[in-house]
């Protein structure tokens, strides 16, 4: 677990302790409009495809000198978002995330018998995007437990080797999750704090996808939020 994840869990834990007292005091929960969240985001492995290094044969065909198989390893990073309640059950969100996944290229099948190797490189990945959450319950922002479905997308930027090479692309995501309102109060200008867990299918196109095609990987977000 990274330092960032540790801090997120600690925040959630402290909030949990406060939750029962806060709810006990609030008979008429406030109606927040904005939500600010920060947490951890884990993205699963993203296959990037295979590519053979080929040479031309005398007949005009090709033969492999060696083969490569690439992927972007799973990684955890930070995720922040701002949400605006549009209706009782719909929230519009802006979101940004930062991760440092490892790019792995496994080289094998060398024609001269070279030992297989996995060449690696750390990539800095930044996403900026937006989306919509649709809560499956009425007055979801004032309920303790509120499941939702979500969809969104945005801009993907991947920097290699100390930003000497930048690749850009797009991402799309859809999934679902739930929020758990830990405390609802008017203290410190807030109208509630809580935790959120979501599971997404993350589709990245271009970027380090060598064939330019869209690649799908799972993602899990765990965050704490404050509502205003």
């Amino acid at each position: 677990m990274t330092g960032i994840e540790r801090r997120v869990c600690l925040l959630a834990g402290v909030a949990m302790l406060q939750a029962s007292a806060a709810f006990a005091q609030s008979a008429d929960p406030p109606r927040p409009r904005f939500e600010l969240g920060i947490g951890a985001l884990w993205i699963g492995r993203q296959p990037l495809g295979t590519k053979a290094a080929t040479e031309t044969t005398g007949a005009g065909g090709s033969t492999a000198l060696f083969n490569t198989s690439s992927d972007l390893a799973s990684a955890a990073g930070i995720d922040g978002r701002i949400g605006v309640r549009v209706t009782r059950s719909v929230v519009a969100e802006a979101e940004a995330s930062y991760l440092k996944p490892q790019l792995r290229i496994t080289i094998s099948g060398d024609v001269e018998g070279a030992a297989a190797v996995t060449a690696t490189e750390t990539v800095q990945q930044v996403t900026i995007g937006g989306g919509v959450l649709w809560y499956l319950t009425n007055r979801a922002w004032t309920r303790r437990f509120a499941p939702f479905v979500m969809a969104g997308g945005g801009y993907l930027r991947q920097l290699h080797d100390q930003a000497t090479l930048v690749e850009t692309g797009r991402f799309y995501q859809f999934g679902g999750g739930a929020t758990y309102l830990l405390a609802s109060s008017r203290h410190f200008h807030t109208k509630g704090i809580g935790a959120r867990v979501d599971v997404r299918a993350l589709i990245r196109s271009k970027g380090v996808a060598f064939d330019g095609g869209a690649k799908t990987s799972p993602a899990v977000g765990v965050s704490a939020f404050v509502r205003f």
Partner: protein
Amino acid sequence: MKRPLSVIVVFALVLGQSSPALAYLKFGVSVRGQQVTLKWSQTPVRYFVSNTGVPGVSATDFQSAMGRAFATWQAVPTASISYQFAGVTSANPSRDDGASVLGFQNRPELDRVLASTSFLVDSATGALVESDIFFNSAFAWSVAAAGEPNRFDLESIALHEIGHFSGLGHSALGETELQSGGGRRVLSAEAVMFPIAFASGSIASRTLKADDIAGISDLYPDGDFNTSAGSVSGRVTRDGQPIFGAHVVAFNVATGLLVGGFALNAQGQFSIGGLSPGLHVLRVEPIDDAEVESFFDSSRTVDIDFRVTFLDRVVVVPKGGDSGEVALKVVRK
């Protein structure tokens, strides 16, 4: 010089040795102790073709095949070199008369040499004055669009020799196998400038490969080639000691293009230019698919006692820049 089968060849030694510059092998000449890269200083480069044909190839066929091969090199968008047909001549390709001539010559004693390129260089300045190409009429030739069995494709061999004519040395991007009767058979190649020809009948070498394009573009860069392409550089060592002559291949994982270069100095340093920006895998191998003399001056000791090795990290080639020093460590066979 292009050979149908292996033979000890000293073509690169005729005028000089490999130039320790970017990538591939470029011809160089020594002028007053300074190494000068051999290249044409003015374009278009004018050439004459011989008025002599051989069985299966008329003089007109010959002229057309040469025109197609020159046009292929000239069509490289990132290179500025151009050529101009100056006319038909009865002059012999081997005559030092200031005119570059391409033609057939009957050289049966060169039983494994299909064609050869020679140069006339101003020894005071290193300027390239003339370059001639002869095609050995002791072999059977073809200009058929689809090639002909048991005949060597004239356009393919011309493409290779015009690479030399333009200043390029040999590429090591190819695989061969030893034949029981001696010599080598080419299994595959990814450069027209590979020193050994495919078997007769093949027309696979009528198309330039990434390695050829990088080489000619490096010699004669056009437009924004130097700012749009990138390079990778580094050092090859074994037990901390530099390796001279190691062949390093850069493979672009996105485009699938292969470009090779050599460790060209006593420090084992290499630099491969003309690469498309992006992520690359590096492979280093000993020169064991052709005679070492096809690449280097025989006075140089080329170390081939090491295993084929891949770099264990992905190399990022930036646009218009260099990857930074890459350390390729190899072990003995």
